[in-house]
């Protein structure tokens, strides 16, 4: 049934449709409504799982670590400082191979205080062993929550479903909400292996020597890479069942493009409009959105780039002393390459990245004005 929903509500409905057993969360702007709606659904009896209001994000993820260890399907959502506070537990959950799914609403980190969208919070958790999906629409948020459970439970790794603060979390748009029966047909019940059970006592995660630890880490990497295939398969099955699906990357008018805007998140849909308007002027513009950041979709990225197309990577993130984070990763993934890849840092702390702004960035890159090793920090002059 089609409903008009904000991104946060799409996230909560995705969790409810996934028949989550335990949700534990702590509210933080701009994620708050995702927790509020789940609490409301639980109070009304429409969410059958256990909803736990935790005393912090660190506790919320600790609760899920325990709940998932006894075989529960688990959910939380957070943002910015909440995610930073969870950091230690993100490693615990991934190392314990628990398929927790979390919705993460991008928000800038302090100091100084800022509430608006910025992808540095989630990208800072790059090395924790969580899969990361970046969504462009509220529909994609709901659909990706369902797909994330399926992939996470198959590869035994946790997944983060990321959406932009306010521009997606608080923007109302039409969302096709699947029926419970349709969601059940796509997402089977969780079949947990090796759970803690008093009837059959075991211990998990105890002190492990270097050789065994090394092999466990190698296995995480193996399963993370295996997840690329599982994500693509989940997207295809979703497409078959619901008539809409998403892959690892989304390319738009790239086949004959001279210069391609590369983005992640909601800016990806703005970039398509910018490309259409540039094409209307006869310019060879294209755009590409990375939907999945971990595991990094190297082959999928390479496959949709014309051999000589120049790239303009627009990052709403920055690693001080280096460059935008997608920019670094894309350069590494395409190495060795003679391709021109330009980095643009834009919209940190929630600055609007508009169609006009993206057109300016595209023109700058297309004219070859960018310096490859020196990312340009750009703001909209209008």
């Amino acid at each position, binding site marked *: 049934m089609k409903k008009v929903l904000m991104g946060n509500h799409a996230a909560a409905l995705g969790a409810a449709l996934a028949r989550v057993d335990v949700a534990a969360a702590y509210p933080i702007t701009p994620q708050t409504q995702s927790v509020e709606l789940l609490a409301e659904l639980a109070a009304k009896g429409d969410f059958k799982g256990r909803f736990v209001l935790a005393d912090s994000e660190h506790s919320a993820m600790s609760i899920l670590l325990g709940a998932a260890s006894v075989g529960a399907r688990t959910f939380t959502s957070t943002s910015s400082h909440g995610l930073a506070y969870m950091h230690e537990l993100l490693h615990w959950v991934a190392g314990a191979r628990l398929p927790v799914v979390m919705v993460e609403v991008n928000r800038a980190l302090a100091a100084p205080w800022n509430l608006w969208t910025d992808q540095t919070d989630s990208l800072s958790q790059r090395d924790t062993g969580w899969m990361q999906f970046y969504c462009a629409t509220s529909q994609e948020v709901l659909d990706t929550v369902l797909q994330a459970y399926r992939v996470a439970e198959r590869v035994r790794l946790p997944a983060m479903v990321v959406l932009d603060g306010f521009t997606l979390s608080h923007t109302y748009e039409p969302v096709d909400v699947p029926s419970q029966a349709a969601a059940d047909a796509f997402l089977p019940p969780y079949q947990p292996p090796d759970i803690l059970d008093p009837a059959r006592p*075991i211990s998990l995660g105890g002190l492990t020597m270097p050789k065994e630890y090394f*092999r*466990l880490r190698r296995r995480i990497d193996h399963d993370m890479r295996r997840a690329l295939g599982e994500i693509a398969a989940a997207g295809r099955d979703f497409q078959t069942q619901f008539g809409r699906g998403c892959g690892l990357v989304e390319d738009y008018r790239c086949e004959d493009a001279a210069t391609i805007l590369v983005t992640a998140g909601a800016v990806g849909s703005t970039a398509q409009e910018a490309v259409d308007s540039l094409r209307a002027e006869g310019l060879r513009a294209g755009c590409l959105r990375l939907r999945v950041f971990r595991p990094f979709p190297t082959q999928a990225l390479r496959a949709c780039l014309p051999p000589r197309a120049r790239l303009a990577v627009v990052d709403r993130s920055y690693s001080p002393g280096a460059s935008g984070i997608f920019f670094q990763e894309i350069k590494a993934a395409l190495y060795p390459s003679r391709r021109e890849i330009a980095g643009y840092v834009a919209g940190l702390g929630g600055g609007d990245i508009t169609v006009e702004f993206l057109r300016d960035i595209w023109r700058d890159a297309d004219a070859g004005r960018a310096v490859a090793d020196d990312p340009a920090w750009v703001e909209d002059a209008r």
Partner: protein
Amino acid sequence: MRRVEATDALPVQLVGDQPTSENRTGDWRSQRPVIDAARCTGCLICWKYCPEACVTRTDKVPVILMDYCKGCAICAAECPRDCVAMQPEEAA
């Protein structure tokens, strides 16, 4: 040098059949707490403060489990009657 290949034969998780309480962690202690039973009132302040939770309640004088005690001396510092003495362990 040997490459560790990515295969499904690698372990996903190590499952132990022993409780972690079998992991006896008291063997690096350099001093041990000794409670003066004659002066102990059984107030259980030591039981409450022990960060290792290795002070066990009894009818009156608590028993400290030396399999886990690290000799941190918090019990001695907190005892209101000052009746926990820290005695050096024999050199190993």
